[in-house]
């Protein structure tokens, strides 16, 4: 599944300052029954966005109009823990987000995001707090995520922090490529390697 290229993104952001947000919250298991990749955005954070009768919970940030249309989500520490379901990353993308910022990500979720075109940006706990504070003071706070420069910046103040991403993955995101494309060109090398495996 190809995705749109990612270069520089400037957007407001949804704040979700809760730690250890797990993938069962991002997309509950009962919504994993599709055999095609579609419709996952509707059930993104389903049980935090809607009450048991299906009514939207107005003050939950993802439902709050003052953040509507944001392309960035800022989560608390250890965002995306739990299951390996790629559906969680799909639901982020399908909801309309291209970037998640946190002071720490769970490994599998982070990898899944990179594979589907969502940029996980890991910042220091202090900088994450700075972003939360700025958004709390002004919901229209713009954040600029510059992938070529590997920086995330509070546009109003110019405060900035750099983030890590390996050169290979960065190239993929900039060009909209994925690992499957890369591996297709390695089949011969893999075939030779496989001959050496004892089982």
């Amino acid at each position, binding site marked *: 599944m190809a995705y749109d290229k990612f270069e520089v993104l400037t957007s407001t952001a949804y704040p979700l300052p809760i730690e250890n947000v797990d993938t069962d919250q991002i997309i509950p298991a009962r919504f994993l029954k599709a055999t*095609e990749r579609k419709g996952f955005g509707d059930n993104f954070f389903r049980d935090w966005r809607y009450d048991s009768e299906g009514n939207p919970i107005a003050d939950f940030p993802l439902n709050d109009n003052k953040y509507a249309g944001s392309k960035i989500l800022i989560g608390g520490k250890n965002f995306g823990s739990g299951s390996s379901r790629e559906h969680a990353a799909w639901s982020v993308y399908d909801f309309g987000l291209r970037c998640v910022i946190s002071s720490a990500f769970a490994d599998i979720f982070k990898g899944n995001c990179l594979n589907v075109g969502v940029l996980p940006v890991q910042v220091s706990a202090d900088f994450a707090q700075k972003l939360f504070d700025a958004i709390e003071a002004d919901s229209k706070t713009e954040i600029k995520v510059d992938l070529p420069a590997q920086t995330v910046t509070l546009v109003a103040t110019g405060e900035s922090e750099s983030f890590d991403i390996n050169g290979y993955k960065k190239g993929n995101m900039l060009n909209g490529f994925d690992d499957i494309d890369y591996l297709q060109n390695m089949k011969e090398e893999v075939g030779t390697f496989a001959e050496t495996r004892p089982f």
Partner: protein
Amino acid sequence: MSKTLFDKVWDSHVVRKIEDGPDVFFIDRHFIHEVTSPVAFVGLKQRDIGVMYPERTFATADHNTPTWNQHLPVADPLSANQLEALANNAAEYGISHWGLGHRNNGIVHIVGPENGITLPGATIVCGDSHTSTHGAFGAIAFGIGTSEVEMVLSTQCIMQPKPKKMRINVNGKLGFGVTPKDVALYIISKQTTSGATGYFVEYAGDVFEDMTMEGRMTVCNLSIEMGARGGMIAPDEKTFEYIKGRKHTPKGADWDKAMDYWKTLKTDDDAEFDVEFNYDAADIEPMITYGTNPGMGMGITKSIPKADDVEGGTSTYKKSLGYMKFDEGDDMIGKQVDYVFLGSCTNGRIEDFRAFCSIVEGRKKADNITAWLVPGSHKVVDQIKEEGLDKILEAAGFVLREPGCSACLAMNDDKVPAGKLAVSTSNRNFEGRQGPGSRTLLASPLVAAATAVEGVVTDPRTLIEVTA
């Protein structure tokens, strides 16, 4: 150069190292199930690429299968659709498929080892985070996303940076009533739910050496719950004894050759880890969780910590206790429970049913408890019957269900209703994990059994006669 067990297995599977990028990593064995594989097959078709080594992939249906009346058509059309997709995809690409009703069917992480697909020194992946289970055999095993499932199908490789290395040593002897599940929940409570993020763990020391293969699987299974990519234990005579003669295990000369290799699979004496932790077996008591992640666990006799005493954000902590309807300082023992779940890839093996029966034998299920006892596979069911455990359960008022993931993630009908409290031998106590609004206490099969007969959270040690 000295190497850890993890280094030895990882390094021998690197097809290509990419500068400033991940390793192209070869996968020996690949498990697929109905929930995380369909979209990968759609991807193969869209890209018009095939499956490179169908004999290295094994399909089983488990995540959303019913655990009652499996001989009837699956009632939920969406679940039925996924099961059909799995069967069709397996047939189209020549992949072995153990669907509902097949003799080898069961939870993927239980049937893999049972059939000798899981081997020491192998690399094993599956679109399921509890793939770490297979590390019990000295394999590198971890969960992957659906894009990676597509990668493995099409080229038998994934692209992953090599994780850092952690060793966790637990030495000494476990007290009575303390099970492998308690060891794992204890470690996770110390590490927190994210403490091992970025690491691959090796478990070492007396406690793991003394442990059965079933126990080691329980421990490795839960590695992901502290954020680790996976966990592994060096293979030993117990490992070789377990795998010998199973369906897919090497035979004859191949076995001898494999054994020569497997005996080299241990961490060299002077090999180094990025980080190492030591725990004392004597400090571990039967564990129970009280919050909404597996790191929020404690000894069953303890009371819920005060928000000011825990690391991390107090608002997150209070939100969690609020969901659980618990207060800081509450005792867990004596809390009224509604549901008991024995099963899952964590505790759905024969040893878990033996442990459960050791408590309920001669006792009766409490009237307020709804109990779901779900064996991990048909082979586990067979063994339960062979050992007469089914009779013990029946006499105590319990009913055995059919194999599947069941109430662990509640994709089928086995859902704990909103607000109800469950003691569960599974692996996650996340909000709504066992059904929207459900509240989960993770614990061992012994704690689950003691709770099932008493109707309230119960320390199993109060029901065990000490014969020593």
